[in-house]
């Protein structure tokens, strides 16, 4: 079993990524709203207020999906399903996926 964490940087594609997860049979997941750290620094930590001018460059949207997937083969299927939805991650960074084996789940 693998812990899979998906970072989605563009709101437009969140639906596609969740549909791809559903297509591989994964719907027990948590979608968490994230904040870009540069934004938090610029607006919540006074010393970094100067960063505000540069914020146009950094993505503001971030959703993080936490889930578990049984095996690597299914993770490969997830990548295929995402590609089938028309997302081209090479053109523009829309998402990142990290996964690692889970030793024990209770």
């Amino acid at each position, binding site marked *: 079993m693998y812990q899979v964490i998906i970072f989605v940087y563009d709101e437009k594609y969140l639906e*596609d990524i969740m549909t*791809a997860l*559903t*297509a*591989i*049979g994964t719907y027990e997941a948590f979608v968490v709203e994230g904040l870009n750290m540069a934004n938090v620094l610029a607006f919540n930590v006074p010393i970094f207020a100067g960063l505000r001018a540069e914020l146009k460059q950094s993505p503001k949207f971030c959703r993080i999906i936490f889930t578990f997937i049984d095996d690597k083969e*299914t993770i490969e*299927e997830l990548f295929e399903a995402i590609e089938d939805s028309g997302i081209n991650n090479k053109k523009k960074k829309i998402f990142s996926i990290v996964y690692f084996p889970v030793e024990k789940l209770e």
Partner: protein
Amino acid sequence: MKRIKISKYIKKEHIKFINSVKKKDALKEMWKIIADKPEIGDPNELYKKFIEREKIMSTGIGAGIAVPHVKLNSVKDFVIAIGISKNGIKFDSLDGKPVHIIIMIAAPAHKHAEYLKLLAQIVLILKNPELRKKIIRSKNEDEIFELLNNK
């Protein structure tokens, strides 16, 4: 293999070119394709549920596609009907555009996981604009069946 192939659920005789221009008429025309199939236990209940589901939110998901779907105890196994409208149907779609492809799904209540996977797979496949164009431009049901074969 966790993903399912929709071709497993599609029968050539369940594919039709439809003439309705209004949503309710189109739903009825689609329902008639599957209403008398042995898997459908109670056709009237099925029709009622399709109409009720549309009241919650339109199943016109945009890009010319609608996927009316219901899950019922009286349905014994999955039945899918595919309707193609050359002229388009006013369907209260999310993007306001007319619907050209309708995929109607009747599912058994106890097959929830398979139901969700099937819905997702249909949406993913129809995301492909080239495939959508080919389906709409098809001259007959055989062509549509071939396009969806192996998907």
